[in-house]
């Protein structure tokens, strides 16, 4: 059992606290009386992963062992999480590779020749060959790329209808998955809400289905449409899931102190912190990117569960819930969050994704309930630099420039802009042949932030770019004091403040 999370009340003795702001790490003094929400310490990782995976595959939950499910001559599809889950180690093989190698060894022994591996990307970009090699390792890559190893394509003609949602929307799923005898889904999760829907099919649907089910104009609840596709997809494909939970943050020797409680910092931690502060002042912003994560060696694996998805998913969720702060007494008037820029393989934050990541913390954060009351103020630390990845974010550029400057209302965006973006053949071309996110991706990111925007009275970004914040309907402040001054109109001069310590629970993007 790891050390549980706790709530610290700031007083005169409290040292300055670590706050992430994009590529910077700040040390901020919070006003007296503010509460600091520390997440529980990470559970110790499993040391013998190999043995643990073998055990999980041989003793699955509510299912026969995987070796028995794999039949000679059967059609098997392995579906794995894309880069919405981090690469779990900088030096050792990724956890997905470790699990999939086990699965394939069993498949080879059982006499399975027809194997295909598909990255469950949803509407996110295709994985580059380098990404695939990083995620699955050279062995799997060399054995299957490019014909039997690729990313899901939501615009491909090769999608088949497996049912209809309540409102009659056809649910189209990747044809290879539907025609398989066995679908083996390998999933990673770092926190509740991060493991995604119980059905893997949500990440393998067509753009048409995803659009119809996620649009704010549609009445249908997106998740319930996939309820019948959790354990089986279509007529014959049975799903076998392997859920792996990770420690919430990478564990590295040099920067581990950033997630420690500041009162407990050792002399070494203080020296390292001073070093990071000094380096931040000297280095240009691109070079600062990796400072806070420079020696994150990797994520530890805390549990491996395999079996029938409808049985495994609740168990994984319950396990992950242990890693969260249990109780928030009463929601505060003002909540503070720091947002770091991720430095992983193939990750990049633009202002829209940064905002939706931050706002996602309101409902899916470290606490079970929102830490800020309805009508309260959220203060985020992020520069929101209007920079877009030239390869990954072409649709975001136009979404930011055209759509958001016209309106920030999801319903209006859906009615006026979504159709045009979805039908644009250039975006489709970039999505299918280059490595761009789908044109609907920025819309879905914005829709996912909408409930939080609705819940909050004011949203202020400390250090935020003026142009970006204005366009998205937020406010920018230079310092925390300025931000609190701006918030005082709605929450009064002595509001209750909660700072959620550490990085957001997931640097994942919407699917």
């Amino acid at each position, binding site marked *: 059992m790891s050390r549980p999370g706790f709530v610290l009340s700031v007083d005169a003795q409290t040292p300055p606290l670590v706050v992430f702001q994009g590529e910077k790490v700040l040390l901020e003094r919070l006003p007296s009386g503010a509460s600091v929400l520390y997440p529980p310490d990470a559970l110790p990782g499993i*040391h*013998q*992963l*190999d*043995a643990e995976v073998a055990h999980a595959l041989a003793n699955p939950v509510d299912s026969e062992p995987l070796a028995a499910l794999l039949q000679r001559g059967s059609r098997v599809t392995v579906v794995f999480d894309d880069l919405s889950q981090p690469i779990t180690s900088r030096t*050792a*093989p990724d956890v997905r590779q*470790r699990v999939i190698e086990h699965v*394939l*060894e069993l498949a*080879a*022994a*059982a*006499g399975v*020749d027809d*194997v295909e591996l598909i990255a469950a990307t949803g509407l996110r970009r295709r994985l*580059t*060959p*380098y990404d695939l090699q990083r995620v699955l390792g*050279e*062995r*799997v890559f*060399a*054995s*299957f790329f*490019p014909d039997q190893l690729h990313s899901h394509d939501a615009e491909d003609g090769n999608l088949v209808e497996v049912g209809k949602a309540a409102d009659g929307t056809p649910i189209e799923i990747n044809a290879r998955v539907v025609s398989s005898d066995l679908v083996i889904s390998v999933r990673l999760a770092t926190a509740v809400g991060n493991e995604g829907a119980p059905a893997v099919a949500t990440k393998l649907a067509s753009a048409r289905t995803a659009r119809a089910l996620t649009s704010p104009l549609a009445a249908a609840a997106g998740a319930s449409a996939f309820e019948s596709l959790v354990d089986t997809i279509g007529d014959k494909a049975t799903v076998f899931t392997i859920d792996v939970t990770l420690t919430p943050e990478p564990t590295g020797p040099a920067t581990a102190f950033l997630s420690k409680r500041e009162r407990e910092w050792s002399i070494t931690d203080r020296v390292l912190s001073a070093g990071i502060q000094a380096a931040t002042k000297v280095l240009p912003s691109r070079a600062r990117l990796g400072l806070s994560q420079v020696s994150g060696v990797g994520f530890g694996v805390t549990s491996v569960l395999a079996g029938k998805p409808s049985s495994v998913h609740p168990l994984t969720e319950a396990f992950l819930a242990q890693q969260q702060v249990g109780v928030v007494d009463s929601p505060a008037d003002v909540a503070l969050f720091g947002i770091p820029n991720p430095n992983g393989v193939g990750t990049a934050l633009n202002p829209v994704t940064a905002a939706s990541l931050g706002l996602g913390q309101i409902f899916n954060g470290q606490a079970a309930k929102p830490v800020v009351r309805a009508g309260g103020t959220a203060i985020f630390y992020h520069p929101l630099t209007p920079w877009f990845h030239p390869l990954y974010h072409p649709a975001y550029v136009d979404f930011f420039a055209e759509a958001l400057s016209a309106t920030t209302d999801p319903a209006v965006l859906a009615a006026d802009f979504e159709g045009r973006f979805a039908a644009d053949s250039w975006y489709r071309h970039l999505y299918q042949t280059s490595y761009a996110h789908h044109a609907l991706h920025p819309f879905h990111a914005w829709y996912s932030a909408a409930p939080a925007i609705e819940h909050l009275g004011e949203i202020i970004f400390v250090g935020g770019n003026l142009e970006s914040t204005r366009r998205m309907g937020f406010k920018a402040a230079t310092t925390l004091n300025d931000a609190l001054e701006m918030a005082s109109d709605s929450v009064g001069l002595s509001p209750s403040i909660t700072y959620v310590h550490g990085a957001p629970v997931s640097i994942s993007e919407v699917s």
Partner: protein
Amino acid sequence: MAAPSRQAVRLLVNPVVRGREYLTELPGPFIFVANHPSELDAPLVSQVLQGVVRRVVSVSAAPETGLRAAAVKSLGLRTTRTLTSMLAHGGSLLLFAENYRADDGTLTEFNLGAARLGIQTGVQIVPVTLVGTYRALPPWRRLPETSRPKVSVIFGRPIQAAPGSEPSAVNDQIVKAITLGLAEAEAGWYGALRAEAEGTFAAVAGSSAGSSTGDVGDSARWQRIWKATAPDKSTRRTVWVK
């Protein structure tokens, strides 16, 4: 010829390592059992194991020549007793278990000593396949090629021999794992696994590995050397992302 040192290996070849993660999770020590196509092997394996195991001592079953071998033999540094006590003190062993070394780099018959030592001491046996070292440093060269040739070190899953098991059965497991590594170079990883499951190993791996019985295949010696020293096609870098 003297074997190149560990530091020299780092400069001279470009090692690709697979399966090292199996070892980092286990406490050790280990008995590594490897094929022995080249003089590069021992320093190469100890180089890639740096930071994973504490100390590796290499021993060859095939008779060795030279001053060092004579000194080791006269001092009795490689007797079963000294090796057992070394394992007990946490040191690991690298055994080249082939009874004699083929001059064309193929696999020859294995000595049962490695399996016996594993059964006797209860230490985990790790099969190690070395691919490309013959091409990098064939017996007639004094230094490897200058282009930092790619060599593969493939660690198999550790084998825990139960007390009282039959040495030949454990030896078969080791040979199978090493042949699987050799087949990986020919047929790809999944292809090799499938061939192993189907029992068509010899056809896939046979051309480069020979078989464990000491019969090194049907082809002539010159053909085997020709094949073993053929340039590696995969070393060319691709600049453009496809």
